[in-house]
């Protein structure tokens, strides 16, 4: 498993940790031009730390759903190409805008990821990667509806949060249901539990099925 170009491992405080090059945004530690990317605060960071084959190589066109305050998407914009960041809640989006202001390839949008028709007039088609980290019910439906932005050989990288679907059920059972719904529109390439970094989260790598 190689890291995407623009992502590196830096030894800080005697530990190897992920890092990207860019302006620091949330008080993260830096090492020269590198800013550390804490897998404990980022599901995509955790996927890379765990060696999941994300297919990321650097320079991709990205749609990021659930950008929150921009912690993770700021790292993505450091190594990716055009990066569209969708967030629905105004409070975190306030910070996201600040993060985006200094990154010319990062485009923030205050939109509901469940309603892609409200941003399809801005987000381009044929993107390489759809990253999804939305803490809402119906995570599989969100991925299905946003499939329209992906190139035929693009990748869905989703972090599925069990508690958002149903707090009372076993995470494993929740994940099975979500994967079953996802398979209507995607081929699942890999899955991995992120529990070492994020409790009750499942990482999914998938490729869109032909229409």
């Amino acid at each position: 498993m190689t890291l995407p170009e623009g992502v590196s491992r830096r030894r800080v405080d005697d530990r190897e940790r992920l890092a990207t090059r860019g302006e620091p945004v949330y008080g993260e530690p830096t090492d020269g031009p590198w800013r550390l990317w804490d897998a404990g605060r980022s599901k995509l960071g955790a996927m890379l730390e765990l060696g999941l084959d994300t297919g990321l190589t650097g320079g991709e066109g990205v749609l990021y759903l659930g950008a929150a305050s921009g912690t993770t998407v700021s790292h993505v914009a450091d190594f990716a190409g055009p990066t569209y960041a969708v967030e629905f809640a105004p409070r975190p989006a306030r910070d996201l805008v600040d993060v985006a202001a200094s990154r010319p390839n990062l485009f923030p949008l205050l939109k509901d990821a469940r309603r892609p028709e409200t941003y399809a007039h801005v987000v381009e088609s044929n993107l390489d990667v759809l990253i999804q980290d939305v803490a809402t019910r119906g995570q599989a439906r969100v991925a299905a509806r946003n499939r329209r932005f992906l190139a035929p050989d693009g990748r869905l990288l989703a972090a599925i949060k069990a508690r958002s679907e149903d707090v009372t059920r076993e995470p494993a059972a929740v994940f099975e249901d979500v994967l079953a719904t996802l398979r209507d529109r995607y081929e699942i390439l890999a899955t991995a539990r992120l529990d070492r970094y994020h409790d009750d989260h499942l990482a999914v790598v998938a490729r869109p099925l032909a229409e």
Partner: protein
Amino acid sequence: MTDEPTASAWFQDVTPGDADAARDAIDDGGTTDPADWPARAVASGFAADEATYYDRLHEATVTATRAAVRERERADDQQLIHCIRAMDDAERTANELAERVAEWAGALFDDADTGVAGARSVAERDAETAAERRAVSLAERVVDLADEADDLRAYIERAAPAVAPNLCRMAGPVLAARLIALAGGLDTLAKKPSGTVQVLGAEDALFAHLSGRAPSPKHGVIYTHDYVRNTRPADRGSAARALAGKLTIAARIDHYAGDIRPSVHEELDERIATIRARADQ
């Protein structure tokens, strides 16, 4: 289907540099299917090349999203959220400082009482020494904070019914504001399943349950509602479930319609009466 390659693009009717037009287009526009907007923008003459297009897109999205965030944050339900949190903060700090005042006044005066009421009487004293002056002044700060909390509560009682009439009728304005705050907004509350509304505010207990350390919580902040608190313990789970179900419906009516619907309130009253009647059997 006519060939209008940029018909639905955000930049269709936008002159480069017109921030207001760009904002309106990004906020209110939409289309079913995305397209290769950068190529089309160049083709249509909106930008000389794709790099210029991305620069304009960046400027437009940052500007539009900043304005949209401001507008959403200024919305009435968001103001309610700030208010209820400020009220809790003002009450908490008033109580904390009242403890300090009681400690201090207990060393200075004979009949010092505790709590905010004690601070109120200390604040009315005539200070005779420099140290007493400071203690009395600190007590005045406690009074100010307690009054601030009262003013915030009064604002919530006035403003909440306009934001969520059915929710307020069912839960009272303060609990209604708390539920909206815990969900993050009326829109997000309206989208939550009833089981989640039932345990809003009991996140700690819920996570303890999920990690196997505790039984499942039967209720969160709705515990403060008379229909839960004053139902006998054996039936409290049923009452909480019934209340959460109707609160969820009330939030949805408030978000999507906004009119008062007496039926949902009557249904809740009847359901609770049935549950409570079990106690008499």
